[in-house]
């Protein structure tokens, strides 16, 4: 883990780059011995590329977070690892629910390098949180069924309450699954 000074140096390096800029590195956080850089969503590819040049060449994990009720609500975390110095740094970004769009880091960029490991993980974040990754080669649901509606890992998504589609329940939940019935999901609870 970079120490607090190392993290600031890393942040100032990113701020100096033309493709990132001073305004795009929003915050640094050193917490429990772990360093986190928060960047603007627009520069994520440039930021990860710059960190790769600094040795953080292994993308260990990409995951989503819902910061409900804070705004901007959705977050995406990128856990980077430098294997030769055994050093980790987290890059995170936040997007609002109105425009949940981020550039995908999966495909190869201008430097000819992408992060192929992010493919399935970005699909999972899209599936669970509804963050749309621009330029992702195959952005489909991965864990939930293809015709599923909603993004279940969001904090305001209720647990349970889904209709169970068995013929046994049809009599008890009148109208579900019939043409004349209400919207799917109504009535079963």
């Amino acid at each position, binding site marked *: 883990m970079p120490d607090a000074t190392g993290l600031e140096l890393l942040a100032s390096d990113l701020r100096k780059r033309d493709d990132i800029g001073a305004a795009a590195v929003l915050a640094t956080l050193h917490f429990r*011995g772990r360093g986190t850089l928060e960047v603007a969503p627009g520069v994520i590819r440039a930021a990860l590329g710059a960190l790769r040049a600094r040795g953080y060449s292994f993308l*260990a*994990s990409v995951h989503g977070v819902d910061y409900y009720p804070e705004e901007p609500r959705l977050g995406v975390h990128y856990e980077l690892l430098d294997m030769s110095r055994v050093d980790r740094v987290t890059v995170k970004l936040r997007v609002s629910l109105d425009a949940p769009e981020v550039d995908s880091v999966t495909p190869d960029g201008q430097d000819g390098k992408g992060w*192929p490991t992010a493919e399935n993980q970005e699909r999972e974040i899209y599936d669970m949180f509804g963050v749309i990754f621009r330029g992702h080669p195959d952005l489909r649901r*991965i*864990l939930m069924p293809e015709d599923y509606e909603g993004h279940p890992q969001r904090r305001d998504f209720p647990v349970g309450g889904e209709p169970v589609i068995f013929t046994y329940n049809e009599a008890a939940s009148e109208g579900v699954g019939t043409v004349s019935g209400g919207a799917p999901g109504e009535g079963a609870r």
Partner: protein
Amino acid sequence: MSATGQMSEYRRQEESITLSAVGDDTHDELLTLNFGPHHPATHGVLRLLVTLQGEVVRSIKPVIGYVHTGIEKTAEDKAYWKVIPVVERMDYLAYYFNAMAYVGAVEALLEVDVPKRARYLRVIHLELNRIASHLIWLGTSALDLGAVSIFLYCLRERELILDLFEMSSGQRMHTRYFQVGGVIEDIPVGFVQKAREFCKVMPERADQYRAILDANQLILQRLRGTCPLDAETLLGLGVTGPLLRAAGNPWDLRKAAPYSSYEDFDFKIPVGTVGDNYDRFAVRVAEIYESVKIVEQALEGLPEGPYITGDRKVALPPRHELATSMEALIHHFKLVTEGFRVPPGEVYNPIEGPRGELGCFVRSDGSAKPARVHMRDSSFVNLQALSKMAEGSYIADMIATLAMLDPILGGIDR
């Protein structure tokens, strides 16, 4: 009829038959094969859409999600200590590892110190679990390659490990033994001796497995030189663990960034050379020996002292105190009803699981329930390497590769 020299219709057709291939275009025809989701060789409920050209695999598209149970969502609805049994059920062969990744993250958020004895007890159980996981992998993989008897031998040794787990926690699987701040209970009398007996017997048995498999012409032909992948491509795909080590990169978090007192133990990291299926097989079998060595050392050096932190805000007070101490009663009540509150923050805690880096991300909003629990499951990430490994090889080699990949669908789908 034959006397007239006239050829019958049947004979004329027969004459026209040649034994050469009937047109080359049929070989170029692509066939999409649906493989799974219920198939013994997919190691769980995994579906593969395989495009074949003759017998050669041209593309593989894994379809997952069949056993998605929303564990990460469930975890957000439970107090921190009640999340442990839930996350244990993700990768169902590596339950101690799931628990370790999770409690490690919560301990980092709480800044709780774990006593030395608890760390050693954790290491003992983690390494026993690694052996058990590798045994299941070895048995089922050999089954895929047509070797049936080895499965029974592997399960025989796994029984010994499960007996040890039952001794220490009362459960054979999903033991809930690791707690935030330590372990739930000290090991019972006789555990150390039984574990030592296991450590004595296991290397001999592993020698026997190698005598069965490693000298078997059929196994070697199926594994040697099939579906190799170099370390650089693997790193790009995020692959860690035995698969990466088989390609010659000795990355192991137990050595690189020791946690839970791994720095105290003397063990080697087995690595392969070319990263083919044989190396993947050999690395995992060699890891069994190393894990036995770690368990032996941990049993030998097991320090005296508490097995869980003395912080009463986090760990339950001993049972006998409840009868005499009002404070203990209050702490007990508070912990059992509400649980403990965790300072707000975000922590990503990676450990070395049997299949690679197993990271747990926990976000706390200051309440008694986690705001987000995410498991970076190694099988989920490693599965992406399957198409890179097996494309262009024969379909039989794809089966072997999938077996050597060791995917656990409970961990992939969570």
